[in-house]
Every structure is written in structure tokens, then in C-alpha cells.
């Protein structure tokens, strides 16, 4: 073999004591608690086993280009966060505020295009007829009562990007943990049934550690590979998801909403889509929607619906004249405890959203994720003090036991069956949630067998569009290499978006102005369509419709074949992964994506 043809030498392994994947709220809670604990006098004698003579070596690898480029505007009761940070002053963190006013709004359909069931259309008519009595204003009914399980009245509004940045600075200034941005982790190192570290995507380096902490979110590469290798515990499944998409908006001078205002909305733009509006300090608001996996639509689109959502009269009277400041999207794993994987094994532990900590009843995930990180850090400190190894038994004794004994577990159990009703339909869904929420999970609707999947185009649009109209739209979409959703929504009566170049902008402008999306040149495409024939056989191409950044498009050269992928538009939300009806998408770890710190 010619010397130049020799494959490059694999880089020498790196050694650490604890290697972590993903820097989200769970990892922030873990690293803050761990680094504080390591500074306590009783930990003075604890040394690194990887590099004797030094304190334990803790490294964290984050996929995104900065630790603040996470996506989530969040309203949270922050019980666990406040327990960790009792003196937390929201004034220290940009865009953070205490919740001052909370409302639950039922939004009527002001355009007549929303695909509402008969009972909801009737509700709209009753609301309009009795508007004076019910206090219906701007096509919205303020519900007189917010169920206690939804209440966030004693909590905070955060920008998660800013919060992560704030915590990250404290962690790194301790000098006891390194957080590496733009450093995606490709896979776990699994040897003889134990996790021995991770392999980095950049150059294939192995990072070997006694403990691997996995907190890489709902679509993280490491968590998914652990699930594949070890399987899921009996009865556990990850089958409920949502895309959360939001805008951060500079409010116009005319806006009278107070800082700390929180609105939860139901009913519009489609009945299955829940929405929110939070008002941050400095005349800034976050407005967004959640598009769930159990929505029937085979042409689900988050961006177009988000534009209609913010134009609802109840929101638009405050937002009109505003300016898009930031935009982003992420997947949410909404299976909650039903999707809980093995929380610990030999050499590894899982925290945060990828560990099934999100509570789908209370609509809360950040505080729960933080708590899992704190609990693991306390467990790790205990094991370090004991000099005990990070075996499955020891981690279950310390970490899992803490988790099972906490309010997180109690509330997760209460929420476990809360979403069952949505598998039957919208009304049973609301009834089921109320039932579970008001009885602490003791009562709930049974779950229907099998997943609720999107309907076919013909079934979904039956009674609204003819087959010929659908076929013409499909032919046009293929000819113009564009998604179907805009064409079909137009046909169903959704009004065109009156672009103003400030807040109502094209999807591509949202990527540039709001998400500021980037893709480093040296990495290959991270979304791969494994088997082209499966794409050819697929009618829906849901990956194209749901794509949060229009990064997956109908291929102009081969409209019926595998879609084209443009990684310079990908926000790494991972929605393509769980929307693909035939699991034909490989979603690899890569840097890049959103470059906005205000989400």
C-alpha cells in the first residue's frame, strides 16, 4: 500500500472521570450541584482516577455552537431550581421575570378555516352569541378557572438560552468542569454491557470515563443508541412527541401587556395545537405553539400555523407592529414516564428529557430536568465520598432511589395516563387530562391500542377538498419542489400571510433573521435517508411537511424519490426523525443549527 493511502491513525483516547453529553437544564443542574459539592471540605480528599493528583476530571460536550443556543422559552414553577438557587434574583438573568398574571384562553376561529369538530364549532357559536355575558373579547374566551395542575403562578418566565448561559458561566468559573460547545458526541462506547465513555463526532476521539452522564435531549444520538442497545424497560415506549416552535418578539410601543404575563391557549389555529404567550422584561414576548404527533394532519406545518396563531385577534392587538427578534423550534418527548428508559446502568446514568422526566400533565419539563441533574449530582458526590464504583447497583441505590422518592416521581405517575384520551380524539383527550389532573392520576381514560397516526390526505380532507383538488395540489407541489401544506391550507380557506418584513416574514427569513442558522463546513450531512425505495413508497413525505427549517425539501431532480436535505437550514429539532412513518431517517450528531441565544 502506498504510504499516503494508509488510513489516519485513530486519535489517542482521552481520559476523564465523568463525561457528559448535552448541556441543557438537566446537565446545568448536574454540573452546578456537582462542582459546588466538589468544593466542600468533605470532598477535599477525592482525587481523579483518570489523572491522579488532580480533582475529578469532569468534561461536558454540547452539540450546539454555544451553550446558550438551546430553544425554549419557558414558564416554570421552578421548585427545583429555586431549591438549588434560593437567592435567585431574576434581574440577574436577561429575559427572566416572575409570573405576575396567568390566563387560560380559549381561542375561537376567526377565519373559518380551522378544522374544528362539531362540538367546538358549536362552542364558538355559543361564545359569539353570549359574548357580552361570557366576556368574549377579540374572539377569545378567558376561562374563569385554571386547573391547579396547570398553574405556574408562583414561578418564573425564562429564556432557557439565557438561563443556560448564566449557569454555564458559574460552572466554568469553578474550574472543576469543562463545557465544550460545538462538540457533538457521535455514540456511546459500550463494552461488555457497560458504558465506558463516548466517541466524539469531530475526529472520532474516544473519551473514556468511569461515568457517562447522558442528557442529550429527546433526539440525542447517545440516548437513542443506548435505547437501541439496551432496549426499553417492559411497558415503556416513546410514541408521543410534539414540535414546539416559537418567536421572540420586540413588542410595539402600543402593547399594554405587563412583564410577567402568561397566557396558555387552546382551540386555534387547529384544535389540537396548544399555544402560549409570555411577556419578558424589556418589552419582549415569546409566542409559540406545540404541534403534537397525535394530530391527524398528514401535512402538518408548524411555521404556517405559528403565523396564523400570532395573528389571532387576541394576540395580534398586542403584537401588531412588533419585530421578530428570535425564532426556533425543538422536539418535545411527550411520552413522559411512559417513555422512561433505563435510568442507570454500569458506567452510565440518564437525566433530563431523554430520561422521560417531562410532565405532560402540567406541561412542565425544565424544572423536572433540572431536578434529575441535581439528584444525579448528589448521588455521584455520595459515591465519590464512599469511593464506590459507578455500577448499575450503586447508581440505582443513590440516583434512581432519590428520583423515586421525590415529587418528580409522584407527579410523573399522576401524569402517566393523562394523555391517553388524545389517542381517541380531542374531546376525550381534554376529559382524560382533566380526570387525571384532578384526581392525581388515580382516574384516567384507557389507552387505545396502537399509535394514532396521521390520516391519508383523502381521509383528512374528506368533505373539504375533492380528490381532484388534492391531486392537482400534489402535482403542483412536486413540479415546484415545495411542501404541500401551503397549497392545501390555501385551498381550505386559510388566508395568505400578509408579510410585513418585520414580524410576518417568510420561513427562510425566519431562519436568517430569527434563528440565524449556521452549518459548519467540515461536517457531512447529519440527516440521511437510509433506503431510497422506502421514500418512493411513501405518500405523505411528512418529513418535508413538518421540517421546522424547510431544510428537507422535495427533490427537484427526483420529486418522488428521497427528499433533498440542506443542512444550512437545519435547526436540529429532530422532528423528521419521529415523523417518518417508516423510520427511514438517520439523524446524526452534528454542530451548527440555531445561533440565537434568546430562545
Amino acid at each position: 500500500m502506498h504510504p499516503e493511502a494508509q488510513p489516519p491513525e485513530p486519535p489517542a483516547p482521552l481520559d476523564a472521570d465523568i463525561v457528559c453529553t448535552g448541556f441543557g437544564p438537566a446537565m446545568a443542574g448536574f454540573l452546578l450541584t456537582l462542582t459546588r459539592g466538589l468544593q466542600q471540605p468533605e470532598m477535599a480528599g477525592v482525587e481523579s482516577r483518570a489523572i491522579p493528583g488532580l480533582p475529578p476530571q469532569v468534561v461536558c460536550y454540547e452539540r450546539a455552537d454555544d451553550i446558550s443556543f438551546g430553544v425554549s422559552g419557558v414558564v416554570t414553577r421552578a421548585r427545583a431550581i429555586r431549591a438549588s438557587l434560593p437567592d435567585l434574583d431574576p434581574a440577574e438573568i436577561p429575559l427572566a421575570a416572575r409570573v405576575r398574571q396567568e390566563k387560560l384562553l380559549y381561542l375561537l376561529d376567526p377565519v373559518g378555516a380551522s378544522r374544528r369538530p362539531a362540538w367546538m364549532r358549536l362552542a364558538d357559536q355559543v361564545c359569539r352569541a353570549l359574548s357580552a355575558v361570557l366576556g368574549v373579547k377579540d374572539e377569545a374566551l378567558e376561562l374563569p378557572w385554571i386547573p391547579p395542575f396547570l398553574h405556574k403562578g408562583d414561578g418564573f418566565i425564562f429564556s432557557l438560552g439565557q438561563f443556560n448561559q448564566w449557569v454555564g458561566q458559574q460552572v466554568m468559573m469553578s474550574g472543576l468542569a469543562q463545557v465544550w460547545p460545538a462538540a457533538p458526541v457521535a455514540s456511546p462506547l459500550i463494552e461488555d454491557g457497560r458504558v465506558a465513555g463516548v466517541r466524539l463526532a469531530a475526529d472520532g476521539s474516544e473519551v473514556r470515563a468511569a461515568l457517562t452522564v447522558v442528557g442529550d435531549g429527546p433526539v440525542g444520538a447517545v440516548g437513542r443508541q443506548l435505547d437501541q442497545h439496551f432496549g426499553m424497560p417492559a411497558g415503556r415506549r416513546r410514541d408521543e412527541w410534539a414540535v414546539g416552535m416559537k418567536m421572540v418578539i420586540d413588542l410595539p410601543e402600543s402593547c399594554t401587556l405587563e412583564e410577567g404575563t402568561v397566557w396558555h391557549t387552546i382551540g386555534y389555529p387547529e384544535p389540537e395545537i396548544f399555544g402560549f404567550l409570555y411577556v419578558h422584561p424589556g418589552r419582549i414576548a415569546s409566542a409559540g405553539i406545540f404541534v403534537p404527533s397525535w394530530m391527524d394532519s398528514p401535512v402538518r406545518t408548524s411555521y404556517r400555523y405559528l403565523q396564523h396563531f400570532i395573528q389571532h385577534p387576541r394576540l395580534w392587538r398586542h403584537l401588531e407592529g412588533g419585530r421578530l427578534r428570535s425564532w426556533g423550534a425543538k422536539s418535545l418527548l411527550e411520552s413522559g414516564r411512559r417513555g422512561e428508559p433505563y435510568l442507570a446502568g454500569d458506567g452510565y446514568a440518564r437525566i433530563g428529557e431523554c430520561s422521560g422526566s417531562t410532565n405532560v400533565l402540567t406541561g412542565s419539563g425544565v424544572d423536572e430536568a433540572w431536578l434529575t441533574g441535581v439528584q444525579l449530582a448528589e448521588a455521584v458526590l455520595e459515591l465519590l465520598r464512599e469511593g464506590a464504583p459507578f455500577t448499575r447497583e450503586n447508581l440505582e441505590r443513590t440516583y434512581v432511589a432519590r428520583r423515586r422518592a421525590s415529587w418528580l416521581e409522584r407527579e410523573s405517575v399522576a401524569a402517566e395516563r393523562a394523555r391517553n384520551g388524545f389517542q381517541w380524539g380531542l374531546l376525550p383527550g381534554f376529559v382524560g387530562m382533566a380526570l387525571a389532573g384532578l384526581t392525581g392520576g388515580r382516574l384516567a381514560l384507557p389507552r387505545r391500542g396502537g399509535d394514532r397516526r396521521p390520516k391519508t390526505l383523502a381521509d383528512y380532507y374528506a368533505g373539504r377538498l375533492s380528490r381532484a383538488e388534492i391531486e392537482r395540489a400534489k402535482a403542483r407541489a412536486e413540479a415546484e419542489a415545495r411542501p404541500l401544506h401551503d397549497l392545501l391550507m390555501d385551498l381550505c380557506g386559510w388566508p395568505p400571510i400578509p408579510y410585513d418584513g418585520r414580524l410576518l416574514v417568510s420561513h427562510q427569513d425566519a431562519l436568517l433573521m430569527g434563528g440565524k442558522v449556521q452549518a459548519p463546513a467540515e461536517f457531512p450531512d447529519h440527516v440521511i435517508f437510509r433506503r431510497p425505495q422506502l421514500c418512493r413508497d411513501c405518500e405523505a413525505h411528512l418529513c418535508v411537511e413538518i421540517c421546522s427549517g424547510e431544510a428537507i425539501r422535495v427533490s427537484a431532480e427526483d420529486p418522488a424519490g428521497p427528499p433533498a436535505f440542506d443542512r444550512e437550514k437545519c435547526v436540529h429539532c429532530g422532528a423528521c426523525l419521529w415523523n417518518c412513518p417508516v423510520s427511514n431517517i438517520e439523524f446524526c450528531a452534528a454542530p451548527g443549527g440555531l445561533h440565537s441565544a434568546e430562545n
Partner: protein
Amino acid sequence: MPFQIIVCGGLAPDPLQTLEPVFDPARPSLRNELMLPAVFDPWAAHALYEAGHLAKQHPGSVVRVVSLAPKAKLQQVMMTVAQKLPFELTALDGPGGGFVDAAAVAAALAGAIAAMPDLDRSRLLLFGGWESATRGAGVVMQRVAERLGIREQFLAVDELTVEADGSLRIKERIEGGLHQISRCASPPAMLAWATGSLPEPPNHPQTGMANMRVLLPALQKAAPAAVEPAAEYLSATLPSVVRQTRVVKDMPAAEIAREIAEWIRQ
């Protein structure tokens, strides 16, 4: 022969962020400055990549970054920069944001360089950005060089070649879109880089981990730098931005260019 390459470079807010100047005559700043994601100043970054390339070509060379920036922010940015190439760091804890007086910055940087115990001026190449993404006074590097007594100064450098006899062949940008090529007999010399010709190196986690063994102690002992503003600021605003979007299909590139040129003229 190995070189001692010192790269002066500060931080700049990630160029994609929304910046809002907060005007305070005593010390103007950016809104939420410490919470804005930051990058190593892109102009200085070009200088750093050139320094790394040069050091690789001349074994035994050392690259040392001297940076004046808020310490906490600098530590965060170093986690990314450290993955690019090996270097040492001298950190000065001071304000960022572009409202710091250029002369005060130059004095602090020159002081830190002059205090380096192992400085060999006969092998010293002083690198930095010709401009800065924060404010772009464009004079810091000359002032640092003057204070260090380095007379060979080159601005807007695009290329450096070390000749067989050890002399330096330097290509600078000059007025009128032209290049000027100079020959410098030997170090010490100051080169304030324009864009250079090297791409951003990919991240190497191994390099990052190795770097951190020297960077973290340097960050821990970052000394505060006294850089009180000497200038009085009367106002601070962002350049106005006009954005118009029009979606077109099948329009020839020449026609698009003509339309954009017409729009700019208006």
C-alpha cells in the same frame, strides 16, 4: 528557526446576535453584554489561524494569545477556540464591547507582553487583527508595537512567507484594491492581519483538552486590567438596516443583480 508568535485578540459578540447599545456617557455598553454569546474577534481569529499554520511549519515555534476581555466570557470562548490549534494564553480581565479606548487597550496588552519572562524579541512576531469586529479603531496593533519598540509594522496583511534565508515576505493590502509586497530581513515584526487566506480550522477535541491544561490556570490568574475610558462618548447607535424580501422564480441572475443595484441606488 522557531518563532515566538504572540497574537493579540479580544472578544466580539457573535455577529449574528441582535445588539442594542445602552448609552451611558461614563461607559456605554451593550444590553445584556455578558449574556450575549461571544466569539474570538474574527479579525484576530484570522491572525491566530495564520499563527498556528506558521508554527506548524517551523517546529519549536510557540503561539501565545494575549487577550483582554471579561474573564468569565473569555473562558467560555476559549472552550471553542482551544479546539482549533495549540496555543498558550495570557488573559487580562477587563471590559469588552468595543467601547474601550484603543490607547488604553494597547497599553494593557503591551504591558502584558513586555512582562513575559521568556520573551525573545529576536524571534518575536506580533500578530493581531488589522481591525476589530467590535468597533474597529484600527490602531491598537500599531500602538502595541510602538510601545514594544517594534518598528517593522505591516497592516492589512494577507500573506506571510518565510524565505529560505529567514527573511519575511509580506503581502499587504493597500489603497485602490492593490497589494504591496515587502521583504523584512528578520523579526521582530508586527503584522496586523486582514483576512489572510486560511479557513477556520476544524475542531479537534484532543487539541482542546491538551490546551486546557495550560489555558485554565492562565484564566484563573487573569489579572484585572485598568482600562478606564479616556474618550467621551456622545451617542451610540447601530447602523440602520433596511430589509425587503421578494420571492421570485426563474429570474436570471443578471436581472436579479440589476434589480439589487437599482434598489441600492435608490
